[in-house]
C-alpha cells in the first residue's frame, strides 16, 4: 500500500517542488516571520473543538483522511451547514499565492470530506487574515486533477529522494526556505571563484 500524502505537502509541492522536497525529504524547516505568524494563527484556529452558531457548526482541527486518494491531514476549520454538508475553510496569513497552491490544498481537504461524509462538495473558502476576507474556491474538475497530479508528484519525490532544481523566480521572495534553498546561488562555482587560484593580491 502507498503511503498517505500530507495535505500540507500538496500545498508545498504545488507552490514549488523543491520547497516540498526540502521540507518532506530533507527535513529542513526554519521559522521566519511568515511561518511564525501562520503558526500563531493556526494555534488560535485549532484552539477549540466544535462550536455552534445560528444553526451552523464549526469544527476546528478536524483530522481528515481519504483512503481512495491516499491523502491525510488536518483541516483548520470545517463548517457544517444546517443540511449536514461540510465545507472546508483554510486559514492563510499571507496573500494569495501563485500557482493555486492554497486552492489545491483546500480542494484536497474537500476530497477527503466527500469521502468521510459521503457527500459532494462544490466549493470552499480561503480566509486571508491580512485582509480579513474569505474568498470562495470552486472545486472544478481541473482543480481536482491538480490535486491528484501533485499527489503523484510527491510520491515520486519521496521515492527518488532527489531534490528538484530551484525555481529561482518570483515565488522565491515568498518562500520561507529561501536561505536554505539558495535559489539564486550558482549551482556550481561561479566565474572568478577559484579555490586553487595562486593570485597574490596586494
Amino acid at each position, binding site marked *: 500500500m502507498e503511503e498517505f500524502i500530507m495535505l500540507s505537502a500538496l500545498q508545498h509541492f504545488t507552490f514549488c517542488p523543491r520547497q516540498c522536497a526540502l521540507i518532506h525529504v530533507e527535513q529542513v524547516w526554519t521559522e521566519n516571520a511568515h511561518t511564525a505568524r501562520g503558526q500563531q494563527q493556526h494555534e488560535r484556529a485549532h484552539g477549540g473543538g466544535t462550536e455552534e452558531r445560528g444553526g451552523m457548526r464549526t469544527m476546528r482541527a478536524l483530522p481528515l483522511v481519504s483512503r481512495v486518494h491516499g491523502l491525510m491531514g488536518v483541516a483548520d476549520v470545517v463548517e457544517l451547514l444546517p443540511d449536514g454538508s461540510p465545507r472546508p475553510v483554510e486559514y492563510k496569513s499571507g496573500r494569495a499565492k501563485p500557482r493555486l497552491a492554497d486552492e489545491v490544498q483546500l480542494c484536497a481537504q474537500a476530497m477527503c470530506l466527500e469521502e468521510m461524509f459521503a457527500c459532494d462538495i462544490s466549493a470552499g473558502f480561503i480566509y486571508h487574515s491580512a485582509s480579513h476576507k474569505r474568498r470562495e474556491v470552486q472545486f472544478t474538475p481541473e482543480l481536482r486533477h491538480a490535486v491528484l497530479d501533485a499527489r503523484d508528484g510527491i510520491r515520486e519525490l519521496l521515492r527518488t529522494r532527489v531534490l528538484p532544481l530551484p525555481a529561482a523566480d518570483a515565488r522565491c521572495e515568498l518562500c520561507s526556505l529561501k536561505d536554505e534553498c539558495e535559489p539564486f546561488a550558482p549551482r556550481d562555482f*561561479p566565474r572568478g571563484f577559484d579555490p586553487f587560484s595562486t593570485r597574490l593580491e*596586494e
Partner: protein
Amino acid sequence: MNTLYIQTQGTYLHLDTDNIRVEVEKERKAMIPLHHVESVVVFGNVLLSPFLIHKLAREHKPVTWLTEFGRFMARTETPVSGNVLLRVAQHACACDMAKALSIARFVAAGKLQNQKVTLMRSAREALDNDPELLRQAAKEINAQIGCLPLAETVDEVRGIEGTAARIYWEVFPLMLRQNRDFFWLTERTRRPARDAINATLNFTYTVLANDCASAAQSVGLDPQVGFLHALRPGRSSLALDLMEELRAVTADRAIITLINRSQLTPRDFVLHEGNTVTIKEDARKTILAHLTERKKEEVTHPLTARKTPLGLIPHVQARLLAQHLRGDRAHYPPYLHR
C-alpha cells in the same frame, strides 16, 4: 547570531518569560531576551533550569557544556536536526575515495587561501623587514596551493596542508607588534600549552570548533564524520574540517588584533612550573567578547554573493557541504575570505 557565553562559576540561568535570567549567588546579574540569543555555551559549574533547556531546544538553539577551561563535554540535540538521508550520503561520501579527496582538497584550499590572505593583510601593517618575510611566506603557501589539484590521496592533501602550516606558523609571530619578547611561538602545541600564544590559540579554536560542530549538527550532518581530518573516536572531524577555512581569518586574526591593541598582555597569563601556560579568566572574557563582536561583522560570501555575518559562515558552509553530499551541488565551495 549571538552566542551567550557564561564563564562565572556558580551562575544559574533561568527562563523568565522570554528572557534568560542570569543569577550569581541568588542575585540577578542580567536579563537577556531569548530572541537575541542564537546559542548558549557554558563553562564549568554553570546551571541551566530544565525549562530554559527545553525552551532553547524547541527553538533549535543549542546548549554546549564545556569544562571551566573550555574542553568540550556535551551539546543538546534538538528535535528536527537530522535528515537520515543526508547522514547516509555523508557516510557514503566519506567511504568514496574520489569524493572524499575532492572535498578534502577544497577544504584545504580554503584554509591555505585564507592563511595567505591573513599574511598579506598583516604585511600591509607590519614594520621593518617583516612585510617582506610575510609576503615571502604567502608566496610559499601559494606554491602549496598550486600542488593541491595534483594531490591524488587525502594523505597527500594533509601533507601539503602540513607544509603550508609550517610556513605559516614560522612567520606568525611577525604579525604581532606588541610584547614580542613575551609572545613568541616555537611550534604549535596542543594541550597543555607551553606558551601564551598556544594557550590562546587552543582556547579560541575550541570555541570556534564548537560553533562549527553546532552548525554541522543543525543542518543534520554528523559532526564526527569528516573528510580532510581522519576519523578518530571522540573527534569531531567534520567540525574540524569546517573550521579549517575559518581558523586564520577568525581565530588567528582575533588573537593578532587583541595582542596588537594590547588588550592581551603578559599579565593575562599564568606561567606554571614545568613550562605550561594558562589564560586568566578576565582574559578569556576579553577573547570571547572580541570573538562575539567579530561574529557580527558582515562579509560578502564569495559564492552566494550575499552579505553574511562572519558568525553565520559555519552554517552557510555546512549547508553548502550538505547540498554537495546530497548531489544538489557539483562541488563543495570553500569559504574564501577577502
